[in-house]
């Protein structure tokens, strides 16, 4: 995952030209091209807005790490480092992953017949030491990212208020949400296609 022109999903799956998976992805050429276009829009945007490259890649590494997708997480960590982030930030992302990993999806439903399916789980709060390195804005983002990754059905306006309070605008929150949601797709496509190809 060096640069933003090479197809990221192909690279992460290990798809080579002429391989069976190359042919399969070619049958869905629009999906292939626009998954890559989404990656570009979120990680190399033409108009970055107020979400920095460091924030984007730190969140990317955190999402992949929460999935236990070690190789994908390493790619986002590499891009974070290439962008000039301090080693302390990378360490803080790793520390947050270690603090926050659990099993999803869990969460609560609106009170009623579905309440019997309510499943308790971690509501992640960034640890004090990790928070000092991440800063309040990125720490708030990581807490929201954890909600989206593991227990999105617990989402509530209060979670968005916490982001607004930490300096995320409405538009920034849309971008942050797209990063987490898109990576939830990308990581599953990569994992699924690797298994389909019989990769270990």
């Amino acid at each position, binding site marked *: 995952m060096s640069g933003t022109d090479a197809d990221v999903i192909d690279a992460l799956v290990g798809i080579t030209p002429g391989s069976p998976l190359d042919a399969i992805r070619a049958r869905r050429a*629009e999906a292939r091209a626009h998954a890559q276009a989404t990656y570009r829009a979120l990680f190399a945007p033409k108009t970055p807005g107020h979400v920095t490259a460091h924030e984007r890649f730190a969140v990317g590494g955190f999402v992949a790490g929460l999935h236990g997708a070690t190789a994908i997480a390493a790619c986002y960590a590499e891009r974070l480092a290439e962008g000039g982030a301090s080693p302390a930030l990378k360490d803080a992302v790793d520390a947050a992953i270690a603090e926050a990993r659990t099993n999803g*999806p869990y969460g609560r439903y*609106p009170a009623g017949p579905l309440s019997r399916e309510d499943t308790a789980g971690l509501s992640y709060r960034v640890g004090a030491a990790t928070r000092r390195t991440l800063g309040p804005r990125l720490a708030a983002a990581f807490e929201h990212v954890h909600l989206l990754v593991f227990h*999105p059905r617990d989402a509530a306006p209060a979670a968005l208020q916490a982001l607004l309070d930490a300096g995320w605008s409405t538009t920034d929150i849309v971008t942050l949400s797209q990063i987490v949601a898109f990576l939830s797709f*990308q990581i599953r496509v990569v994992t699924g296609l690797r298994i389909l190809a019989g990769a270990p």
Partner: protein
Amino acid sequence: MTDTVLNPPEHTVPSVFTRAPLDWLPWLEPLAVDQMTERHMASLVDAARVKSPYFRLLARDPDALEARTRTDKDIFYNPDAGLPRAERELAAAATSRFNGCLYCASVHARHAATYSKREADVQRLLDAGVTADLGERWNAIVAASVALAATPIAFGPEHVDRLRRAGLDDLAIADVIHAAAFFNWANRLMLSLGEPAATAGP
């Protein structure tokens, strides 16, 4: 102007998974139609989506929205072989049922029922959940979708083998993977930026 969270108007919160059409009420301010630039409008891909607060909210990051929508359309609508449309919708509905997205489940359960003509099976998925017995081919698709939706991902070679035994070729299995993976994208946006509301009915 400082951005704020929206308080949705009084509404009926749906308490069960349903194939009935639902509304969706945003928790953050969508773009106002008269504020939208040509770029914002183009990012909707379908002009009619300007009526949707969900898409006008996502249009705040137009490049991400447009690429999302074009990815979505190819995964679900591309008619070139692979998995039948009904079963792409089944993967979407099963993923949404497992993640707990009542809104997404309602839309895609409707589509799955329409394209498969198996309303009772689709309703059983909604009522009983992802362990409902829907016949082996659908069970294999639901199980694969659920394993893929788990975090960490629980999808493995045994799911591929089961799909192959159920008659899916590799393009169809790739379609299951993409349809299920896409709803891990869609569910997270729908669940976290607003909430479903029962419609008043006809």
